[in-house]
């Protein structure tokens, strides 16, 4: 009980001390909060995107098979479907037709695709909000395409995807197979790639090996490899941002060091007075500890809360482009809140612990001196 009362008294004194030097402490908290805000925004953003990628790919086929020519992706003969289907453990194989369509008026690349089921006539298309937003030449529900051999093709928009699905449908145009082949120039008997579903996922690597042996020009890509690529992409981008910010972080620590270690004559005298009226060295260090914790914890909490709001309510407006990468068409969507406790804990220990140490250590020498000497020097 006595210990609790002691700590309460020290915390009271610490708060009073912080308030007495409010401009110095306010500027420290502001800068510290900004640093935490930026770093935790990057953590939240990258984490949320990785989670979104996982969610999007959750229903994706376990394996995609592409054909490689000259080290580059080429069209795959639909005859490969039977070969892959014949491998034990393969549940189903679907030849996929998809590609990109460059529209000069908007300068954007759109994804064109033939879904498994397309319940409309050949002249119809379904498209995403981002397509409508950027196409520029949609008249009524008519949309003009230029085919691979230079002809103009007019198609009718029969469905626009909901805005909530923008993350995956913003640039998407679904169409029938004949129209796709006319626009893209993919000949009959060929597909873009094969979507392979596997009964037992544990056998995926074995099946991939067999596909490579049966078709040496085929490249199987596992779903986990796609996920890993997305994760690496966002880790690389967020790491790049943090490297760019490292200068600011370093400047902050130099600033904090200067503020925390610079004992003014007034502060030295105060320590001498406290020792003179019966405070121990440990008591002096304790109030400095509470001071360091108070500032760093306040800044950490404020910074994390602000970054949470910034990323999950304001869509990381401040630097979303740096993390999303360059594009003409950015999907509008709200990220689902994802909190990586481990990364936040690391951030906590990398910010709160060093600052608290930086506050306490310089006081050590002064607090161990005889109060008489400290007061005379003050």
């Amino acid at each position, binding site marked *: 009980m006595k210990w609790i009362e*002691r700590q309460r*008294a020290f915390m009271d*004194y610490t708060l*009073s001390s912080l308030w007495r030097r409010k401009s110095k402490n306010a500027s420290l908290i502001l800068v510290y909060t900004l640093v935490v805000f930026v770093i935790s925004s990057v953590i939240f953003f990258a984490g949320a995107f990785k989670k979104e990628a996982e969610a999007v790919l959750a229903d994706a086929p376990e394996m995609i098979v592409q054909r490689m020519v000259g080290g580059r992706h080429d069209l795959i003969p639909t005859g490969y479907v039977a070969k892959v289907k014949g491998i034990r453990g393969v549940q189903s194989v679907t030849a996929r037709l998809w590609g990109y369509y460059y529209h000069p008026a908007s300068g954007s690349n759109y994804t064109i695709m033939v879904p498994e089921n397309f319940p409309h006539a050949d002249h119809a298309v379904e498209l995403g909000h981002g397509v409508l937003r950027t196409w520029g030449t949609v008249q009524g529900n008519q949309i003009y395409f230029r085919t691979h051999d230079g002809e103009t093709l007019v198609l009718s928009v029969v469905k626009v995807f909901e805005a909530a699905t923008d993350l995956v449908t913003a640039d998407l145009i679904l169409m029938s197979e004949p129209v796709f082949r006319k626009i893209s120039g993919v000949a009959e008997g060929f597909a873009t790639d094969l979507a392979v579903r596997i009964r037992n996922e544990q056998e995926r690597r074995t099946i991939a090996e067999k596909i490579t042996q049966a078709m040496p020009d085929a490249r199987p890509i596992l779903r986990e490899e796609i996920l890993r690529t997305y994760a690496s992409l966002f880790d690389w981008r967020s790491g790049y941002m943090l490297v760019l910010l490292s200068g600011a972080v370093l400047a902050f620590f130099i600033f904090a060091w200067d503020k925390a270690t610079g004992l003014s004559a007034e502060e030295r005298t105060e320590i001498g007075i406290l020792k003179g*009226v019966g*405070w*121990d060295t440990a*008591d002096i260090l304790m109030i400095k500890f509470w001071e360091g914790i108070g500032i760093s914890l306040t800044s950490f909490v404020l910074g994390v809360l602000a970054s949470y709001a910034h990323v999950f309510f304001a869509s990381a407006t401040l630097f979303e482009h740096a993390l999303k990468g360059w594009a003409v068409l950015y999907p509008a969507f709200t990220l689902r809140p994802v909190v990586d406790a481990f990364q936040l804990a690391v951030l906590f220990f990398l910010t709160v612990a060093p600052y608290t140490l930086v506050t306490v250590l310089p006081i050590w020498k002064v607090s161990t001196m005889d109060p*008489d000497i400290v007061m005379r020097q003050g």
Partner: protein
Amino acid sequence: MAKITKTFNAGKTKAFTALRDIDLQIDMNRITVFVGPSGSGKTTLLSIIGCMSRPTSGRIFLNGRETTSLTQRFATEVRRNTFGFIFQSYNLIRGITVLENTMIPAYPGGSKHGIVKRKAMDLLDRLKIGSKAHQKVESLSGGEQQRVAIARALINGPSVVIADEPTAHLDTDLVMALLDIIAEIKEEGKTILIASHDPLIFQSSIVDRVVNLRDGAVVE
């Protein structure tokens, strides 16, 4: 006190001996005044008696227990519980209130906040400064600040009160008021040690003993 010597910057070219072989017995429950010119070692002696600094050599015994060889932690505990110090320039902490300044010595003791606060208010009321409890100390006059310093010195119920040049910034009326307070504190059974070269203090009838110091030594 047995052969107390204090040398500052010992072993260096700027070495200065403030106290030389002080042998002294101080009676409890008495008012003892240390008199001497500036630089005679009064403040240094009081600082060593009050466990605020250590002598270069010699020993001090308090109620039969040696205090000079105590570790810093125990010396601090003795200082907090036994001695109440009234500094020459009061050394109140600016920016905080009269009440907070009075309560500060009691914080490490771990007593309940409410009890310490009540005790502090009682002391301030007794010293007729209770009405200014919530004012910042820098807004007070010299005499008022000194009374705050006295209240702070008494908050832990010390048996020894040490006052270093308590009348340095006071006029005659305030000095007489201070002497009344000191007499009251003595009536409570406390021992009072004062360093002063003010005749109003060392010639006062309430003083039991005067010790003359010159050049760091006791002058008989």
